[in-house]
């Protein structure tokens, strides 16, 4: 890296010489550089605005279409704002989705699997960050390495396991939910995230707690956990979003039993493949219903979400 720096410094030395030109041309140069600055600023913002529109457009189109009447959707020239606003699309979407059941299932699975994950993550992260034991680094490296293996390989065997336990039988609703929850009670990435956070907590606190006669267990729940609340919030939100978006595994477990569908399964099953423009209004209303809670979480917990997601790349 150091070599590189010097190389570029040498590269650009011509510019230094160019700058040392005559006095009269300096003003002219300043004006030119001001103009190029403005031009580059315009280009920069124009680019960002165009890309921003491309990013926003699907959201906009989803909302607009969800409010349109069937007749308007089927116009050859599409309109960018509904001529008549049709709220009934939403009533239809809620009814057809069987939204109450989907919401109940998703929240049940999401919250229980999130709480379970938080407990296992806190315990493991504490052991890796604070406790001293033989093979600690080895086990931790091993766990990180296992993140490389694609989940598909486990999904097949896990499906075999849970169906051998009878958890996939359509009569066994409790088993169905257990199958959607228990395998997700552990996340190596979150252990890694929380361990980093625990390590930042100064050792003096630990020693002080020891002097006060606190046990490791008390120290963890009374000092570490409150101090790590931001990271725990991040984990909570990301995990909840994961449950809201999960499709593959619940789809395998539910295998067509709509009583145990999660929200995404319900959405896909209700509005199946057929391309029916008459249905676009209700279909887009349903996608709005699925998307809005996520966007609300994003608005309220933006900081937590972006920090958690961004952390993944720091190792490089």
């Amino acid at each position, binding site marked *: 890296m150091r070599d590189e720096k010097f190389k570029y410094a040498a590269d650009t030395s011509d*510019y230094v010489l160019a700058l040392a030109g005559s006095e009269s041309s300096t003003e002219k140069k300043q004006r030119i550089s001001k103009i190029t600055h403005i031009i580059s600023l315009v280009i920069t913002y124009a680019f960002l605005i165009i890309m921003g529109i491309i990013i926003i457009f699907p959201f906009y189109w989803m909302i607009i279409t969800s409010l349109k009447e069937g007749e308007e959707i089927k116009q050859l020239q599409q309109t960018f704002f509904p001529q008549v606003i049709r709220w009934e699309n939403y009533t239809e979407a809620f009814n057809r989705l069987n939204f109450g059941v989907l919401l109940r299932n998703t929240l049940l699975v999401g919250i229980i699997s999130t709480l379970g994950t938080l407990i296992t993550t806190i315990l493991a992260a504490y052991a890796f960050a604070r406790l001293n034991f033989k093979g600690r680094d080895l086990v931790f490296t091993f766990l990180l390495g296992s993140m490389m293996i694609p989940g598909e390989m486990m999904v097949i065997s896990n499906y075999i396991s849970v169906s051998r336990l009878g958890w996939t039988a359509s009569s066994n609703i409790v088993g169905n939910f257990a199958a959607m929850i228990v395998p997700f009670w552990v996340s190596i990435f979150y252990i890694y995230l929380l361990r980093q956070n625990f390590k930042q907590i100064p050792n003096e606190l630990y020693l002080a707690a020891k002097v006060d006669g606190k046990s490791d267990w008390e120290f963890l729940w009374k000092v570490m956990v409150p101090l790590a609340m931001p990271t725990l919030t991040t984990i909570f939100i990301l995990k909840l979003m994961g449950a809201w978006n999960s499709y593959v595994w619940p789809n395998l477990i539910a295998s067509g039993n709509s009583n145990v569908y999660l929200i995404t399964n319900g959405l896909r099953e209700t509005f199946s493949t057929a391309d029916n423009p008459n249905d676009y209004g209700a279909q887009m209303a349903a996608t709005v219903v699925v998307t809005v809670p996520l966007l609300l979480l994003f608005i309220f917990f933006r900081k937590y979400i972006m920090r958690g997601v961004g952390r993944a790349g720091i190792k490089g």
Partner: protein
Amino acid sequence: MESKNNWKAWLYLAPVLILLAVFTFYPIINTVYVSFLKDYNYTTGTHSGFAWFDNYVAVLTPYSELGGAMYEKVMKIALPNTLLITIITVPLSIIISMVIALTLNSIKILKKFFQTVFFMPYVTNAIAIGMVFSVIFSTDYGIFNNLLGVQNLAWIYRTSASDTVNYWRALFAICFYIIWHSLPYKILIFLGGLQNIDAQYYDAAKIDSAPKWKIALKITVPLLSPQILYMMITSFIGSFKEYNSVIGLFGKDGGNFDVNTGPSTMQTMVFFIYDQVDKNNVHYASAASIFLFLIIMAFTVIQNKVSKKRVHY
């Protein structure tokens, strides 16, 4: 910290280790085992002996007992689809997100606002937004055709029996969607990388009054190379496992395209694997998943080797 912590520490780790043993480590071994079994029935756990590599052969060669049906699905549909999606979306999404991150990093006014906007696709449901894209790309009343000024151009679905969907148009639609969906994460990682770059590099360049594009190309991009490598590896792995986007955009059958133009559906490798689980062919699904794992491993190793020479740490 005393040594009496030793057994206590393992108690703290016990829940995680037990769960991982049951739901991660055992399944990996079991999947390898099942992939060697002949006619495995997962509900009863019975099988008729070892097929060894026959399941792999059945999945990958046209001369299998199944008259080549599975071979067609893997070698003529799933693998080409997966490779094409990967080759198109990985470099494009990295380049686009890097340009956006560089531009975002160079502004001050509205920076937060744009950052929030560009992150929005991350907090979406892949199936729901896939359905939105299929409405945008709709044949008769789609806004995309409208903006192009054409009518009845099929991108996703056939609307009548006489209609055909050209494979390459469908591929365009799904790649567009995947890139749209993958930008936020990459932009965020690149922005993080940009913040870590020591300001003295820029100060040096500024004193030398080097033009902006030259600073970006000769200083910023090389200094971002660890992030670029990280993005390449993770998005290669991610796009080899593409599945939800296909279900969202094309529905549960993965589309229906004109066979004269390319593969007849947008089914991917993971699609094939889950399809086989659904059809109770768990041994074929296992073989295919290990095949996929080997491809991913090979790509990751090659990328690491190639980039060793190019990445500046």
